[in-house]
Protein backbone atom coordinates (compact mmCIF):
# COMPACT_ATOMS: atom_id res chain seq x y z
CA UNK A 1 0.00 0.00 0.00
CA UNK A 2 1.46 3.37 -1.03
CA UNK A 3 1.53 6.35 1.28
CA UNK A 4 -0.93 8.30 -0.84
CA UNK A 5 -3.48 5.53 -0.42
CA UNK A 6 -3.30 5.97 3.33
CA UNK A 7 -3.30 9.75 3.41
CA UNK A 8 -5.89 10.40 0.76
CA UNK A 9 -8.94 9.16 2.69
CA UNK A 10 -7.66 10.67 5.94
CA UNK A 11 -7.27 14.08 4.31
CA UNK A 12 -10.65 13.88 2.63
CA UNK A 13 -12.39 12.92 5.86
CA UNK A 14 -10.56 15.68 7.71
CA UNK A 15 -11.63 18.24 5.14
CA UNK A 16 -15.23 17.08 5.36
CA UNK A 17 -15.21 17.20 9.14
CA UNK A 18 -13.75 20.67 9.08
CA UNK A 19 -16.27 21.95 6.58
CA UNK A 20 -19.14 20.36 8.49
CA UNK A 21 -18.01 21.91 11.73
CA UNK A 22 -17.44 25.39 10.37
CA UNK A 23 -19.87 25.73 7.48
CA UNK A 24 -22.60 23.14 7.35
CA UNK A 25 -23.32 23.06 11.06
CA UNK A 26 -23.75 26.85 11.44
CA UNK A 27 -26.02 26.92 8.38
CA UNK A 28 -28.00 24.08 9.88
CA UNK A 29 -28.26 25.95 13.19
CA UNK A 30 -29.58 29.00 11.37
CA UNK A 31 -32.16 26.84 9.65
CA UNK A 32 -33.22 25.13 12.87
CA UNK A 33 -33.18 28.43 14.78
CA UNK A 34 -35.38 30.13 12.21
CA UNK A 35 -38.09 27.50 12.48
CA UNK A 36 -37.62 26.76 16.21
CA UNK A 37 -40.92 28.44 17.04
CA UNK A 38 -42.78 27.27 14.04
CA UNK A 39 -43.34 28.52 10.55
CA UNK A 40 -45.66 31.29 11.66
CA UNK A 41 -43.00 33.01 13.76
CA UNK A 42 -40.57 32.68 10.86
CA UNK A 43 -43.06 34.20 8.46
CA UNK A 44 -43.95 36.99 10.88
CA UNK A 45 -40.27 37.73 11.53
CA UNK A 46 -39.56 38.35 7.89
CA UNK A 47 -42.80 40.23 7.14
CA UNK A 48 -43.27 42.48 10.16
CA UNK A 49 -42.80 46.18 9.33
CA UNK A 50 -39.32 46.65 10.81
CA UNK A 51 -38.06 43.52 9.00
CA UNK A 52 -39.71 44.58 5.75
CA UNK A 53 -38.07 47.95 6.05
CA UNK A 54 -34.67 46.41 6.70
CA UNK A 55 -35.05 44.18 3.64
CA UNK A 56 -36.26 47.14 1.60
CA UNK A 57 -33.34 49.31 2.73
CA UNK A 58 -30.85 46.57 1.92
CA UNK A 59 -32.29 46.21 -1.56
CA UNK A 60 -32.13 49.98 -2.09
CA UNK A 61 -28.48 49.97 -1.07
CA UNK A 62 -27.88 47.05 -3.42
CA UNK A 63 -29.52 48.60 -6.47
CA UNK A 64 -27.68 51.87 -6.02
CA UNK A 65 -24.27 50.46 -5.11
CA UNK A 66 -23.89 47.65 -7.62
CA UNK A 67 -24.71 49.54 -10.85
CA UNK A 68 -22.46 52.43 -9.81
CA UNK A 69 -19.61 50.03 -9.10
CA UNK A 70 -20.23 48.19 -12.35
CA UNK A 71 -19.80 51.47 -14.17
CA UNK A 72 -16.81 52.44 -12.06
CA UNK A 73 -15.19 49.01 -12.38
CA UNK A 74 -15.55 48.98 -16.14
CA UNK A 75 -14.24 52.49 -16.61
CA UNK A 76 -11.37 52.04 -14.19
CA UNK A 77 -10.34 48.67 -15.63
CA UNK A 78 -10.59 49.98 -19.20
CA UNK A 79 -8.48 53.04 -18.42
CA UNK A 80 -5.95 51.14 -16.33
CA UNK A 81 -5.37 48.27 -18.73
CA UNK A 82 -5.77 49.72 -22.21
CA UNK A 83 -3.61 52.77 -21.56
CA UNK A 84 -0.21 53.32 -20.02
CA UNK A 85 0.23 56.48 -18.03
CA UNK A 86 2.03 57.91 -15.06
CA UNK A 87 0.43 57.00 -11.74
CA UNK A 88 -1.29 53.93 -13.16
CA UNK A 89 0.16 51.53 -10.60
CA UNK A 90 -0.68 53.98 -7.84
CA UNK A 91 -4.35 54.02 -8.82
CA UNK A 92 -4.44 50.22 -8.89
CA UNK A 93 -3.07 50.20 -5.34
CA UNK A 94 -5.57 52.87 -4.32
CA UNK A 95 -8.47 50.76 -5.52
CA UNK A 96 -7.44 47.99 -3.15
CA UNK A 97 -7.33 50.18 -0.05
CA UNK A 98 -10.86 49.25 1.13
CA UNK A 99 -9.67 45.62 1.36
CA UNK A 100 -6.96 46.64 3.78
CA UNK A 101 -8.94 49.06 5.95
CA UNK A 102 -11.20 47.71 8.69
CA UNK A 103 -14.85 48.47 7.84
CA UNK A 104 -15.34 50.09 11.24
CA UNK A 105 -12.57 52.56 10.45
CA UNK A 106 -14.20 53.19 7.08
CA UNK A 107 -17.44 54.04 8.86
CA UNK A 108 -15.63 56.36 11.24
CA UNK A 109 -14.02 58.18 8.32
CA UNK A 110 -17.46 59.05 7.03
CA UNK A 111 -18.58 60.22 10.47
CA UNK A 112 -15.54 62.49 10.62
CA UNK A 113 -16.30 63.83 7.16
CA UNK A 114 -20.07 64.16 7.22
CA UNK A 115 -21.07 63.96 10.90
CA UNK A 116 -22.52 66.93 12.79
CA UNK A 117 -19.06 67.89 14.04
CA UNK A 118 -17.33 66.72 10.87
CA UNK A 119 -15.59 68.61 8.07
CA UNK A 120 -18.72 69.09 6.01
CA UNK A 121 -21.06 68.93 9.01
CA UNK A 122 -21.96 72.59 9.18
CA UNK A 123 -22.45 72.93 5.49
CA UNK A 124 -24.68 69.89 5.44
CA UNK A 125 -26.83 71.25 8.32
CA UNK A 126 -27.08 74.66 6.64
CA UNK A 127 -28.34 72.98 3.50
CA UNK A 128 -30.62 70.68 5.44
CA UNK A 129 -28.90 67.53 4.23
CA UNK A 130 -28.37 64.48 6.35
CA UNK A 131 -25.73 61.93 5.45
CA UNK A 132 -24.89 60.24 8.70
CA UNK A 133 -27.67 58.24 10.37
CA UNK A 134 -29.46 58.26 7.02
CA UNK A 135 -29.54 56.46 3.69
CA UNK A 136 -26.74 58.48 2.00
CA UNK A 137 -24.33 57.52 4.76
CA UNK A 138 -25.24 53.84 4.49
CA UNK A 139 -24.73 53.95 0.73
CA UNK A 140 -21.41 55.80 1.04
CA UNK A 141 -20.11 53.31 3.60
CA UNK A 142 -21.26 50.34 1.54
CA UNK A 143 -19.74 51.79 -1.62
CA UNK A 144 -16.44 52.33 0.12
CA UNK A 145 -16.27 48.76 1.34
CA UNK A 146 -17.37 47.20 -1.95
CA UNK A 147 -15.33 49.44 -4.26
CA UNK A 148 -12.57 46.96 -5.16
CA UNK A 149 -14.68 43.93 -6.07
CA UNK A 150 -15.61 44.59 -9.69
CA UNK A 151 -12.55 46.60 -10.70
CA UNK A 152 -10.23 44.03 -9.17
CA UNK A 153 -11.97 41.23 -11.01
CA UNK A 154 -11.71 43.02 -14.34
CA UNK A 155 -8.20 44.48 -14.20
CA UNK A 156 -6.22 41.22 -14.37
CA UNK A 157 -8.67 39.80 -16.89
CA UNK A 158 -8.40 42.76 -19.24
CA UNK A 159 -4.67 42.99 -18.64
CA UNK A 160 -4.25 39.39 -19.77
CA UNK A 161 -6.37 39.94 -22.85
CA UNK A 162 -4.20 42.81 -24.01
CA UNK A 163 -5.24 45.31 -26.64
CA UNK A 164 -4.79 43.35 -29.86
CA UNK A 165 -8.44 42.53 -30.38
CA UNK A 166 -9.51 46.11 -29.75
CA UNK A 167 -6.86 47.40 -32.12
CA UNK A 168 -7.97 44.91 -34.74
CA UNK A 169 -11.52 46.16 -34.34
CA UNK A 170 -10.45 49.78 -34.74
CA UNK A 171 -8.38 49.12 -37.86
CA UNK A 172 -11.45 47.39 -39.27
CA UNK A 173 -13.29 50.67 -38.97
CA UNK A 174 -15.19 50.29 -35.68
CA UNK A 175 -15.33 53.21 -33.28
CA UNK A 176 -14.70 53.15 -29.55
CA UNK A 177 -18.25 52.30 -28.53
CA UNK A 178 -18.74 49.57 -31.13
CA UNK A 179 -15.38 48.11 -30.18
CA UNK A 180 -16.39 48.01 -26.53
CA UNK A 181 -19.78 46.50 -27.30
CA UNK A 182 -18.68 43.90 -29.86
CA UNK A 183 -15.17 43.01 -28.72
CA UNK A 184 -14.32 44.05 -25.16
CA UNK A 185 -17.62 43.35 -23.43
CA UNK A 186 -18.15 39.80 -24.74
CA UNK A 187 -14.63 38.95 -23.61
CA UNK A 188 -15.14 40.18 -20.05
CA UNK A 189 -18.83 39.56 -19.42
CA UNK A 190 -18.40 36.47 -17.24
CA UNK A 191 -15.66 38.13 -15.24
CA UNK A 192 -17.87 41.16 -14.84
CA UNK A 193 -20.81 39.06 -13.66
CA UNK A 194 -18.52 37.33 -11.20
CA UNK A 195 -17.44 40.71 -9.84
CA UNK A 196 -21.06 41.86 -9.65
CA UNK A 197 -21.99 38.76 -7.64
CA UNK A 198 -19.18 39.27 -5.15
CA UNK A 199 -19.99 42.96 -4.90
CA UNK A 200 -23.70 42.25 -4.31
CA UNK A 201 -23.00 39.66 -1.65
CA UNK A 202 -20.81 42.09 0.22
CA UNK A 203 -23.21 45.01 -0.22
CA UNK A 204 -25.99 42.95 1.37
CA UNK A 205 -23.87 41.54 4.15
CA UNK A 206 -21.79 44.57 5.12
CA UNK A 207 -22.08 45.13 8.85
CA UNK A 208 -19.16 47.03 10.34
CA UNK A 209 -19.04 50.20 8.27
CA UNK A 210 -22.80 50.46 7.97
CA UNK A 211 -23.36 49.93 11.67
CA UNK A 212 -21.14 52.93 12.45
CA UNK A 213 -22.87 55.36 10.09
CA UNK A 214 -26.47 54.16 10.23
CA UNK A 215 -27.28 54.86 13.85
CA UNK A 216 -29.41 51.69 13.80
CA UNK A 217 -32.78 53.33 13.91
CA UNK A 218 -35.28 50.54 13.68
CA UNK A 219 -37.59 50.91 10.72
CA UNK A 220 -35.47 53.76 9.37
CA UNK A 221 -31.75 53.04 9.03
CA UNK A 222 -31.52 49.36 9.79
CA UNK A 223 -30.22 47.07 7.07
CA UNK A 224 -30.64 43.31 7.28
CA UNK A 225 -27.40 42.48 9.11
CA UNK A 226 -28.03 45.28 11.61
CA UNK A 227 -31.57 44.07 12.13
CA UNK A 228 -30.29 40.57 12.87
CA UNK A 229 -27.96 41.89 15.50
CA UNK A 230 -30.59 44.01 17.20
CA UNK A 231 -33.04 41.10 17.32
CA UNK A 232 -30.35 38.88 18.72
CA UNK A 233 -29.45 41.38 21.41
CA UNK A 234 -33.10 41.52 22.34
CA UNK A 235 -33.14 37.75 22.79
CA UNK A 236 -35.52 37.32 19.87
CA UNK A 237 -33.47 34.41 18.60
CA UNK A 238 -36.07 32.91 16.28
CA UNK A 239 -36.61 36.25 14.53
CA UNK A 240 -32.90 36.93 14.29
CA UNK A 241 -32.34 33.50 12.75
CA UNK A 242 -35.20 34.03 10.33
CA UNK A 243 -33.62 37.12 8.84
CA UNK A 244 -30.25 35.39 8.95
CA UNK A 245 -31.73 32.48 7.02
CA UNK A 246 -33.02 34.85 4.36
CA UNK A 247 -29.55 36.31 3.99
CA UNK A 248 -27.96 32.87 3.96
CA UNK A 249 -30.32 31.74 1.21
CA UNK A 250 -29.24 34.70 -0.87
CA UNK A 251 -25.61 33.85 -0.17
CA UNK A 252 -26.13 30.25 -1.28
CA UNK A 253 -27.94 31.48 -4.36
CA UNK A 254 -24.98 33.72 -5.28
CA UNK A 255 -22.55 30.87 -4.73
CA UNK A 256 -24.53 28.69 -7.13
CA UNK A 257 -24.52 31.44 -9.74
CA UNK A 258 -20.82 31.95 -9.11
CA UNK A 259 -20.22 28.26 -9.79
CA UNK A 260 -22.13 28.45 -13.05
CA UNK A 261 -20.24 31.57 -14.07
CA UNK A 262 -16.90 29.99 -13.26
CA UNK A 263 -17.76 26.96 -15.35
CA UNK A 264 -18.74 29.18 -18.25
CA UNK A 265 -15.50 31.08 -17.89
CA UNK A 266 -13.49 27.87 -18.06
CA UNK A 267 -15.37 26.63 -21.07
CA UNK A 268 -14.37 29.65 -23.08
Amino acid at each position, binding site marked *: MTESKVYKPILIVAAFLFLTLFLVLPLLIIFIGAFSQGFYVFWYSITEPAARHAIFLTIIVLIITVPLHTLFGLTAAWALTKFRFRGRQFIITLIEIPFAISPVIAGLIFIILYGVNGFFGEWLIDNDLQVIFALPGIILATMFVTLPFIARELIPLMEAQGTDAEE*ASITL*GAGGFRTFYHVTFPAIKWGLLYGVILCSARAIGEFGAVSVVSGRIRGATNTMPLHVEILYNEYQFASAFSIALLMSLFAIFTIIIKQIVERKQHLR
Partner: protein
Amino acid sequence: MSITIKDINKVFGKTPVLKDIHLNVRQGELLALLGPSGSGKTTLLRIIAGLEHVTKGDIYFEDKNVTHEGAQDRSVGFVFQHYALFPHMKVKDNIAYGLRVRKRKSRLPNVKITEKVQELLRLVKLEAFGDHYPNQLSGGQKQRVALARALAINPSVLLLDEPFGALDAQVRKELRKWLKTLHKQTGVTTLFVTHDQEEALDVADQVVVLKDGEIIQRGTPINIYESPNSPFMYRFLGNANELNGVVTKDGVSIDGLTFVSEWTHTIGAEIVGYIRPHEISISHTESSEHQLAVTISSIHHVGPVVFIEAKRKHGEKENVEIELSKSKFDELSIRVGDHMYARIDRLRTFESEDYCI
Protein backbone atom coordinates in the same frame (compact mmCIF):
# COMPACT_ATOMS: atom_id res chain seq x y z
CA MET B 1 -1.92 52.68 -52.72
CA SER B 2 1.55 54.14 -52.35
CA ILE B 3 2.85 55.22 -48.98
CA THR B 4 5.24 58.08 -48.36
CA ILE B 5 6.85 58.52 -45.00
CA LYS B 6 8.55 61.83 -44.41
CA ASP B 7 10.91 62.49 -41.57
CA ILE B 8 9.10 60.35 -39.01
CA ASN B 9 10.36 60.54 -35.43
CA LYS B 10 8.93 58.68 -32.50
CA VAL B 11 9.91 59.07 -28.88
CA PHE B 12 8.61 56.88 -26.04
CA GLY B 13 9.15 58.83 -22.84
CA LYS B 14 12.71 59.92 -23.42
CA THR B 15 13.79 57.03 -25.62
CA PRO B 16 13.86 57.74 -29.33
CA VAL B 17 12.45 54.73 -31.14
CA LEU B 18 12.46 56.05 -34.70
CA LYS B 19 14.84 58.68 -36.01
CA ASP B 20 14.20 60.67 -39.19
CA ILE B 21 12.66 57.84 -41.16
CA HIS B 22 12.08 58.46 -44.86
CA LEU B 23 10.49 55.72 -46.86
CA ASN B 24 8.57 55.32 -50.09
CA VAL B 25 6.47 52.27 -50.73
CA ARG B 26 5.20 51.96 -54.26
CA GLN B 27 1.70 50.83 -55.18
CA GLY B 28 1.51 47.04 -55.16
CA GLU B 29 4.88 46.50 -53.51
CA LEU B 30 5.52 43.68 -51.03
CA LEU B 31 7.97 45.17 -48.58
CA ALA B 32 9.62 43.63 -45.54
CA LEU B 33 10.64 45.69 -42.52
CA LEU B 34 13.50 43.66 -41.14
CA GLY B 35 15.48 44.29 -38.01
CA PRO B 36 16.60 42.92 -34.68
CA SER B 37 14.25 43.35 -31.71
CA GLY B 38 14.13 46.92 -30.53
CA SER B 39 14.93 48.31 -33.96
CA GLY B 40 11.61 50.14 -34.18
CA LYS B 41 10.16 48.10 -37.03
CA THR B 42 6.89 47.27 -35.30
CA THR B 43 6.49 50.86 -34.12
CA LEU B 44 6.91 52.04 -37.71
CA LEU B 45 4.24 49.60 -38.87
CA ARG B 46 1.87 50.70 -36.11
CA ILE B 47 2.45 54.33 -37.03
CA ILE B 48 1.50 53.59 -40.63
CA ALA B 49 -1.65 51.87 -39.35
CA GLY B 50 -2.51 54.81 -37.11
CA LEU B 51 -2.28 52.72 -33.95
CA GLU B 52 0.58 54.87 -32.70
CA HIS B 53 1.04 58.63 -32.93
CA VAL B 54 4.14 60.17 -34.43
CA THR B 55 6.23 62.59 -32.43
CA LYS B 56 7.22 64.39 -35.60
CA GLY B 57 6.84 63.87 -39.34
CA ASP B 58 4.15 63.06 -41.89
CA ILE B 59 2.63 60.03 -43.56
CA TYR B 60 0.97 60.16 -46.95
CA PHE B 61 -1.27 57.59 -48.59
CA GLU B 62 -0.91 58.59 -52.26
CA ASP B 63 -1.05 62.39 -51.99
CA LYS B 64 -3.24 62.48 -48.93
CA ASN B 65 -1.70 63.39 -45.61
CA VAL B 66 -3.08 60.85 -43.13
CA THR B 67 -0.81 61.72 -40.20
CA HIS B 68 -3.68 62.94 -38.06
CA GLU B 69 -6.23 60.37 -39.11
CA GLY B 70 -7.00 57.65 -36.61
CA ALA B 71 -6.68 53.95 -37.36
CA GLN B 72 -10.44 53.79 -37.72
CA ASP B 73 -10.41 55.98 -40.83
CA ARG B 74 -7.25 54.84 -42.58
CA SER B 75 -8.70 51.70 -44.10
CA VAL B 76 -5.65 49.57 -43.46
CA GLY B 77 -5.73 45.83 -43.01
CA PHE B 78 -3.68 44.95 -39.96
CA VAL B 79 -2.63 41.41 -39.07
CA PHE B 80 -1.25 40.72 -35.61
CA GLN B 81 1.35 38.18 -34.58
CA HIS B 82 -1.07 36.48 -32.22
CA TYR B 83 -4.00 36.67 -34.66
CA ALA B 84 -6.21 38.89 -32.46
CA LEU B 85 -9.32 37.07 -33.64
CA PHE B 86 -12.55 37.73 -31.75
CA PRO B 87 -12.90 34.50 -29.76
CA HIS B 88 -16.67 34.68 -29.26
CA MET B 89 -17.42 35.06 -32.97
CA LYS B 90 -17.50 32.35 -35.58
CA VAL B 91 -14.91 32.49 -38.34
CA LYS B 92 -17.42 33.92 -40.79
CA ASP B 93 -18.46 36.62 -38.32
CA ASN B 94 -14.85 37.50 -37.67
CA ILE B 95 -14.36 38.03 -41.39
CA ALA B 96 -17.61 39.97 -41.75
CA TYR B 97 -16.83 42.24 -38.79
CA GLY B 98 -15.25 45.09 -40.76
CA LEU B 99 -18.19 45.08 -43.17
CA ARG B 100 -20.84 44.99 -40.45
CA VAL B 101 -19.49 47.83 -38.30
CA ARG B 102 -19.68 50.32 -41.15
CA LYS B 103 -22.08 53.21 -40.88
CA ARG B 104 -25.51 52.30 -42.18
CA LYS B 105 -25.27 54.31 -45.41
CA SER B 106 -22.05 52.71 -46.57
CA ARG B 107 -22.87 49.23 -45.30
CA LEU B 108 -23.39 46.44 -47.81
CA PRO B 109 -26.68 44.54 -47.67
CA ASN B 110 -26.46 41.31 -45.68
CA VAL B 111 -26.63 39.11 -48.75
CA LYS B 112 -23.60 40.85 -50.22
CA ILE B 113 -21.71 40.52 -46.96
CA THR B 114 -22.39 36.77 -46.88
CA GLU B 115 -21.21 36.49 -50.48
CA LYS B 116 -18.06 38.43 -49.76
CA VAL B 117 -17.31 36.28 -46.72
CA GLN B 118 -17.71 33.13 -48.81
CA GLU B 119 -15.37 34.55 -51.42
CA LEU B 120 -12.76 35.36 -48.78
CA LEU B 121 -13.11 31.94 -47.16
CA ARG B 122 -12.34 30.45 -50.57
CA LEU B 123 -9.39 32.77 -50.99
CA VAL B 124 -7.85 31.62 -47.71
CA LYS B 125 -8.90 28.02 -48.37
CA LEU B 126 -11.11 27.70 -45.32
CA GLU B 127 -14.51 27.19 -46.99
CA ALA B 128 -15.39 24.42 -44.55
CA PHE B 129 -14.55 26.42 -41.44
CA GLY B 130 -16.98 29.34 -41.59
CA ASP B 131 -19.03 28.04 -38.66
CA HIS B 132 -16.07 27.14 -36.47
CA TYR B 133 -14.89 29.23 -33.58
CA PRO B 134 -11.29 30.50 -33.56
CA ASN B 135 -10.23 28.16 -30.74
CA GLN B 136 -11.14 25.20 -32.94
CA LEU B 137 -8.52 26.21 -35.53
CA SER B 138 -4.79 25.64 -35.78
CA GLY B 139 -2.36 28.56 -35.66
CA GLY B 140 -1.92 28.67 -39.41
CA GLN B 141 -5.67 28.58 -39.98
CA LYS B 142 -6.20 31.36 -37.45
CA GLN B 143 -3.71 33.57 -39.22
CA ARG B 144 -5.43 32.93 -42.52
CA VAL B 145 -8.74 33.99 -40.96
CA ALA B 146 -7.04 37.12 -39.66
CA LEU B 147 -5.82 37.85 -43.19
CA ALA B 148 -9.26 37.29 -44.67
CA ARG B 149 -10.74 39.60 -42.03
CA ALA B 150 -8.19 42.29 -42.89
CA LEU B 151 -8.82 41.89 -46.63
CA ALA B 152 -12.60 42.06 -46.22
CA ILE B 153 -12.58 45.84 -45.96
CA ASN B 154 -10.67 46.17 -49.26
CA PRO B 155 -7.79 47.82 -47.45
CA SER B 156 -5.67 50.38 -49.20
CA VAL B 157 -2.65 48.90 -47.46
CA LEU B 158 -2.07 45.54 -45.81
CA LEU B 159 0.16 45.59 -42.74
CA LEU B 160 1.38 42.43 -41.07
CA ASP B 161 3.20 42.43 -37.75
CA GLU B 162 5.40 39.32 -37.51
CA PRO B 163 2.55 37.37 -39.07
CA PHE B 164 4.25 33.98 -38.92
CA GLY B 165 6.17 34.52 -35.71
CA ALA B 166 3.95 32.29 -33.59
CA LEU B 167 3.79 29.39 -36.05
CA ASP B 168 5.99 26.34 -36.36
CA ALA B 169 8.57 26.03 -39.11
CA GLN B 170 6.57 23.88 -41.51
CA VAL B 171 3.41 26.01 -41.38
CA ARG B 172 5.48 29.15 -41.58
CA LYS B 173 7.04 28.04 -44.84
CA GLU B 174 3.68 27.17 -46.36
CA LEU B 175 2.15 30.46 -45.31
CA ARG B 176 5.10 32.39 -46.69
CA LYS B 177 4.54 30.88 -50.08
CA TRP B 178 0.84 31.43 -49.78
CA LEU B 179 1.26 35.10 -48.81
CA LYS B 180 3.35 35.65 -51.94
CA THR B 181 0.65 34.12 -54.12
CA LEU B 182 -2.05 36.05 -52.33
CA HIS B 183 -0.16 39.26 -52.86
CA LYS B 184 0.08 38.53 -56.56
CA GLN B 185 -3.66 37.85 -56.70
CA THR B 186 -4.78 40.91 -54.78
CA GLY B 187 -2.04 43.39 -55.65
CA VAL B 188 -2.53 45.24 -52.36
CA THR B 189 0.44 47.25 -51.19
CA THR B 190 1.78 45.10 -48.37
CA LEU B 191 4.26 45.73 -45.57
CA PHE B 192 5.28 43.07 -43.13
CA VAL B 193 7.52 43.15 -40.12
CA THR B 194 9.89 40.30 -39.39
CA HIS B 195 13.07 39.61 -37.53
CA ASP B 196 13.71 36.53 -39.64
CA GLN B 197 16.19 37.36 -42.40
CA GLU B 198 15.35 34.30 -44.42
CA GLU B 199 11.66 35.17 -44.34
CA ALA B 200 12.30 38.73 -45.51
CA LEU B 201 14.61 37.63 -48.33
CA ASP B 202 12.23 34.87 -49.37
CA VAL B 203 8.93 36.74 -49.42
CA ALA B 204 9.52 40.42 -50.12
CA ASP B 205 10.19 42.38 -53.33
CA GLN B 206 11.86 45.04 -51.27
CA VAL B 207 13.62 44.74 -47.93
CA VAL B 208 14.17 47.62 -45.54
CA VAL B 209 16.59 46.90 -42.71
CA LEU B 210 16.20 48.88 -39.51
CA LYS B 211 18.50 49.14 -36.55
CA ASP B 212 18.13 51.38 -33.50
CA GLY B 213 15.33 53.33 -35.13
CA GLU B 214 17.18 54.07 -38.35
CA ILE B 215 17.01 52.61 -41.82
CA ILE B 216 20.36 50.97 -42.51
CA GLN B 217 19.75 49.68 -46.00
CA ARG B 218 17.00 49.24 -48.50
CA GLY B 219 16.96 47.13 -51.63
CA THR B 220 15.80 44.01 -53.34
CA PRO B 221 16.51 40.78 -51.45
CA ILE B 222 19.34 39.89 -53.84
CA ASN B 223 20.81 43.34 -53.60
CA ILE B 224 20.66 43.31 -49.80
CA TYR B 225 22.24 39.92 -49.49
CA GLU B 226 24.92 40.40 -52.14
CA SER B 227 25.94 43.91 -51.24
CA PRO B 228 25.54 44.64 -47.55
CA ASN B 229 26.49 48.26 -47.00
CA SER B 230 27.91 47.93 -43.50
CA PRO B 231 29.50 45.48 -41.10
CA PHE B 232 26.17 45.35 -39.27
CA MET B 233 24.41 44.20 -42.42
CA TYR B 234 27.05 41.55 -43.00
CA ARG B 235 26.56 40.14 -39.56
CA PHE B 236 22.80 40.51 -39.55
CA LEU B 237 22.13 38.84 -42.90
CA GLY B 238 23.63 35.41 -42.61
CA ASN B 239 27.02 34.38 -41.31
CA ALA B 240 30.24 36.14 -42.16
CA ASN B 241 33.88 35.65 -41.30
CA GLU B 242 35.71 38.71 -40.10
CA LEU B 243 39.41 39.25 -40.80
CA ASN B 244 41.40 42.32 -39.79
CA GLY B 245 43.85 43.87 -42.21
CA VAL B 246 45.54 46.96 -43.59
CA VAL B 247 45.17 48.71 -46.94
CA THR B 248 48.34 48.75 -49.10
CA LYS B 249 48.93 50.03 -52.60
CA ASP B 250 48.43 46.54 -54.02
CA GLY B 251 45.12 45.93 -52.30
CA VAL B 252 44.23 44.67 -48.87
CA SER B 253 46.85 42.97 -46.76
CA ILE B 254 45.71 40.45 -44.21
CA ASP B 255 48.71 39.10 -42.33
CA GLY B 256 51.06 39.33 -45.26
CA LEU B 257 48.62 37.96 -47.80
CA THR B 258 47.31 40.42 -50.30
CA PHE B 259 43.70 40.36 -51.52
CA VAL B 260 41.70 42.43 -53.91
CA SER B 261 38.77 44.20 -52.33
CA GLU B 262 35.71 45.39 -54.21
CA TRP B 263 35.85 48.67 -52.39
CA THR B 264 38.58 51.30 -52.44
CA HIS B 265 40.10 52.64 -49.27
CA THR B 266 42.83 55.13 -48.37
CA ILE B 267 46.23 53.48 -48.18
CA GLY B 268 47.28 52.67 -44.65
CA ALA B 269 43.77 52.43 -43.28
CA GLU B 270 42.87 49.54 -41.02
CA ILE B 271 40.07 47.48 -42.41
CA VAL B 272 37.83 44.57 -41.51
CA GLY B 273 37.18 42.11 -44.28
CA TYR B 274 33.95 40.12 -44.47
CA ILE B 275 33.67 36.79 -46.21
CA ARG B 276 30.55 34.65 -46.42
CA PRO B 277 31.23 31.03 -45.42
CA HIS B 278 30.19 29.83 -48.89
CA GLU B 279 32.53 32.29 -50.57
CA ILE B 280 35.56 30.30 -49.49
CA SER B 281 37.03 27.43 -51.50
CA ILE B 282 39.22 24.90 -49.81
CA SER B 283 41.88 22.47 -51.06
CA HIS B 284 44.52 20.13 -49.69
CA THR B 285 47.32 21.64 -51.74
CA GLU B 286 48.48 25.21 -52.05
CA SER B 287 47.79 26.48 -55.57
CA SER B 288 48.61 30.16 -55.18
CA GLU B 289 50.11 32.42 -52.59
CA HIS B 290 46.81 34.09 -51.79
CA GLN B 291 45.57 31.31 -49.61
CA LEU B 292 45.11 31.05 -45.88
CA ALA B 293 46.72 28.05 -44.26
CA VAL B 294 44.21 26.43 -41.90
CA THR B 295 43.71 23.38 -39.71
CA ILE B 296 40.26 21.81 -39.73
CA SER B 297 38.93 21.89 -36.17
CA SER B 298 35.35 20.69 -36.50
CA ILE B 299 32.88 19.37 -39.04
CA HIS B 300 29.16 19.78 -38.70
CA HIS B 301 26.57 18.28 -41.04
CA VAL B 302 23.25 20.05 -41.52
CA GLY B 303 21.29 18.20 -44.18
CA PRO B 304 22.79 18.87 -47.61
CA VAL B 305 25.26 21.41 -46.24
CA VAL B 306 28.47 20.86 -44.29
CA PHE B 307 29.82 23.56 -41.99
CA ILE B 308 33.51 23.40 -41.31
CA GLU B 309 35.35 25.28 -38.62
CA ALA B 310 38.99 25.84 -39.47
CA LYS B 311 41.65 27.53 -37.35
CA ARG B 312 44.13 29.79 -39.12
CA LYS B 313 47.75 28.80 -38.68
CA HIS B 314 49.15 32.32 -38.93
CA GLY B 315 48.22 35.83 -37.94
CA GLU B 316 45.56 36.15 -35.28
CA LYS B 317 44.70 32.46 -35.53
CA GLU B 318 40.94 33.17 -35.72
CA ASN B 319 38.47 30.49 -36.58
CA VAL B 320 37.18 30.61 -40.12
CA GLU B 321 33.78 29.15 -40.96
CA ILE B 322 33.45 27.45 -44.31
CA GLU B 323 30.28 26.15 -45.91
CA LEU B 324 30.45 23.33 -48.44
CA SER B 325 27.90 21.26 -50.27
CA LYS B 326 27.76 17.63 -49.18
CA SER B 327 29.03 16.46 -52.59
CA LYS B 328 31.97 18.85 -52.56
CA PHE B 329 32.78 17.76 -49.02
CA ASP B 330 32.74 14.07 -49.98
CA GLU B 331 34.92 14.77 -53.02
CA LEU B 332 37.58 16.44 -50.86
CA SER B 333 37.31 13.84 -48.07
CA ILE B 334 38.07 16.24 -45.24
CA ARG B 335 38.81 15.06 -41.72
CA VAL B 336 39.31 16.94 -38.48
CA GLY B 337 42.98 17.87 -38.08
CA ASP B 338 43.70 18.15 -41.83
CA HIS B 339 45.97 20.97 -42.89
CA MET B 340 44.37 22.76 -45.82
CA TYR B 341 44.40 25.96 -47.86
CA ALA B 342 41.47 28.32 -48.06
CA ARG B 343 40.98 30.63 -51.01
CA ILE B 344 38.80 33.67 -50.56
CA ASP B 345 36.53 34.06 -53.57
CA ARG B 346 34.96 37.31 -52.54
CA LEU B 347 35.97 39.85 -49.94
CA ARG B 348 34.18 42.99 -48.83
CA THR B 349 36.06 45.42 -46.67
CA PHE B 350 35.08 48.21 -44.35
CA GLU B 351 37.43 50.69 -42.77
CA SER B 352 37.72 50.07 -39.06
CA GLU B 353 36.45 53.48 -38.01
CA ASP B 354 33.04 52.76 -39.46
CA TYR B 355 33.17 49.40 -37.80
CA CYS B 356 30.64 49.50 -35.10
CA ILE B 357 27.96 47.17 -33.91
